[in-house]
């Protein structure tokens, strides 16, 4: 008991003598936003500690900065969080499918902290670089992989106005960035100075070339219908009817191509374990492997989100959250908890529906891993070059017929006015 009192005493002394002066010094040099018309001073900040609702304007300010958009919400942290959920769900879901239990012990509740344990293990492991490897590229490739995956995420609109980079040629930018992945795989495999990674890298390149064209073409019919390359506009253009009803074949081709792009079973040829050890990942170890895994799961989120934006109407869905918060206690802690002043019913609803749809598509992407063997490279190339391209053309003609028949497009029968 006495030790706890001493502990509290020491904490108080350290906070008041070191912590508070430090906060004051930092706040003195930071350009702080004006709050409620008054300039935020260190004194005002202290008053916020007494009345937390006064921090709401600061929150409002922070969540509209570009840094927040890129780093936290529609950007990387959100994607990484969903990626972590994906890894956990994949493990438990596959385990249930295969009459197993899956992670169980770590974190007490159904092994929910297993991912954390795996991450710590990967960080603690030694990174082994093969002799004769091209070290700069060997180090740079995993970081480039994650960065490229994050760049795709930055282009995805999650809710109206909630996109890190709202470019007018959004869909072209997405495909341009996706084109970097096989390049990174090939560079990394070449840099690792080993035979199996080299075969894996070449396979990744083959696979990308075979599936990139149906990938583009399936998105092209969406562009024909919406008349825009901007992803936000595409999502808005699907207001009454989602494009999956008009373009089911394109959606199917897009789904298959994204599986191939993600190197997931049945298209995991570049990492085919029984043939070429681990493909282009053979020489990875420790956190290099961890970064590439993180990047590939962020990619899973990015492509599922792209599917939702292109075919499932983006954030569209019935309004289930209240538009305005009910009148209640606006002061005190309740105000902070309900985020009065920051809360926007439409945005929250949009984010909710977008996340639900994306998780649904991610579940569909996980499913083939349990039910399908690996495809062979010649069948893969045949599928990509012959079958999928023809299918996308069929749906492109359907899209053109819809436009010229006056059903969709400007002034069409089913267009929202």
């Amino acid at each position, binding site marked *: 008991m006495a030790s706890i009192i001493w502990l509290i005493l020491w904490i108080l002394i350290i906070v008041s003598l070191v912590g508070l002066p430090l906060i004051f010094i930092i706040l003195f040099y930071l350009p702080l936003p004006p709050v409620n018309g008054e300039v935020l001073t260190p004194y005002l900040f202290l008053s916020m500690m007494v009345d937390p609702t006064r921090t709401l304007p600061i929150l409002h300010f922070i969540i509209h900065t570009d840094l927040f958009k890129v780093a936290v919400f529609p950007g990387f942290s959100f994607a990484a969080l969903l990626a972590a959920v994906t890894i956990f769900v994949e493990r438990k879901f*596959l385990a249930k*499918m*295969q*009459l*197993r239990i899956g992670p169980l012990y770590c974190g007490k509740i159904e092994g929910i902290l297993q991912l954390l344990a795996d991450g710590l293990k990967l960080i603690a492991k030694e990174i082994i670089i093969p002799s004769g490897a091209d070290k700069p590229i060997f180090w740079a490739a995993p970081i480039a992989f994650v960065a490229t995956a994050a760049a795709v995420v930055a282009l995805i609109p999650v809710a109206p106005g909630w996109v890190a980079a709202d470019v007018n040629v959004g869909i072209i930018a997405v495909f341009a960035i996706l084109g970097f992945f096989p390049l990174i795989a090939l560079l990394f495999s070449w840099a690792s100075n080993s*035979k*199996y990674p080299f*075969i894996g890298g070449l396979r990744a390149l083959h696979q990308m070339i075979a599936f990139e064209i149906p990938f583009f073409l399936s998105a092209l019919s969406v562009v024909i219908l919406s008349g825009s390359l901007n992803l936000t506009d595409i999502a808005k253009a699907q207001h009454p009817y989602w494009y999956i009803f008009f373009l089911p074949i394109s959606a199917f081709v897009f789904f298959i191509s994204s599986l191939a792009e993600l190197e997931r*079973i*049945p298209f*995991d*040829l570049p990492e*085919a*374990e*029984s*043939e*070429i*050890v*681990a493909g282009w990942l053979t020489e990875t170890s420790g956190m290099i492997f961890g970064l590439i895994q993180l990047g590939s799961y962020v990619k899973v989120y990015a492509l599922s989100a792209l599917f939702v934006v292109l075919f499932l109407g983006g954030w569209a869905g019935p309004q289930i959250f209240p538009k305005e918060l009910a009148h209640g206690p606006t002061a005190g802690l309740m105000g902070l908890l309900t985020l009065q002043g920051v809360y926007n019913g439409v945005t929250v609803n949009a984010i909710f529906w977008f996340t639900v749809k994306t998780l649904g598509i991610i579940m569909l992407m996980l499913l083939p*891993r*349990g*039910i*399908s*063997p*690996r*495809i*062979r*490279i*010649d*069948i893969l190339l045949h599928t990509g070059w012959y079958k999928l391209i023809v299918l996308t053309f069929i749906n492109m003609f359907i899209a053109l017929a819809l436009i010229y028949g006056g059903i969709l497009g400007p002034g069409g029968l089913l267009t929202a006015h």
Partner: protein
Amino acid sequence: MEKNLEHQIDESEKLGMQIVKESEDDRLMTLSVGPQHPGSGHFRFTIKVDGDYVVHCDPDPGYVHRGEEKMCEYRNFIQNIPHLERPVIHDSANITYSYSLAVEELVGIQVPRRGQFIRAIASELDRQIYTLYWLAIYGIFLGHSTMFMWPTGDRELFIDLMDALSGARVTHAFNIPGGVRNDIPDGFKDKCLRHISYFEKRLKEYEDIFYTNPLFIQRTEGVGILTKEDAIGLGVTGSVLRASGVPYDIRKAEPYDVYNEIDFKVQYMKSGDSLARAYVPLLDMKESCHIMRQLLDKMPESGEVRAKLQPTPKGPPGEAYRRVESGRGALGYYIVSDGSPKPYRVKISVGSFRNMIALPHLLVGSKLADMPSVYWSLNYWPVEADR
């Protein structure tokens, strides 16, 4: 090194393989598959690939050689049983079965009828355990992880039965010269029938998820075709031989113990490709369930299970060769005795090694991606082949 290579090329020419000229060697990549490769097992083979095509294959077994045959010469006939089942622990009832048959012939023992039935049941159970394990690995070799988990889980059905029968999950040392080690426990028959009927339902699910999967059929149909003539010429056995259109099964061809009283069909297919070699074990498993039902039905209710033996049994000088149908084909023992309690020489003829001989024959000319589907369809167990 040079000499070694020339020797290898000579050997390859004898097997009828395509030989690569040295001037073309630049465009070839030599890959060493194994023993640490995830798709090889305790086995290594060197392949040369031209683009995606395998142009040369050179198997190099022997990584798990244990000298089982030599070890037999220092132990008496009974002491030999526990170490002889080590090469293939999943199928240990079968690998000791033919040893027991040969020793019984040498020593001159008549096995009681109930013992004959029980050891036939044990060998059928172990054949299922082995084939399920083989199927699991075939699944993961083709990238189908569910097909790895399901048979590995369903193996427990038969492992439980063997556990009840012998007290050990694997390496039972159950089939011994003179019969079986102990009698079956109470309620074994009902439990066995229950597990068999559940397993037959599961086999249908295997077909649904794996065998009728279009991607599986695309990957294995027409791949690594072994014609009937080649199969007979190369001397392959077991499911590989039956997949090439030869309905040959030791249980039918030279019935041992009680197999002549059992009514069953020899399952075979004619195409001789990887698909047929993957299908025949499944048909065998179905047939094995059928055989087990009959064995349980016809087994005498009571009686001796083991013939009385001397502590160190010995027979007159002589030799014996007996074989049984194991999970991988004909498994024979050739034992020479000089009249002492220890065998003078033991030679094990295993199906794995004979099937492996077909590997270079099938792999040359196929694609690199076909390597796992061809290699593992040969029903090859590296540890057994090295003995």
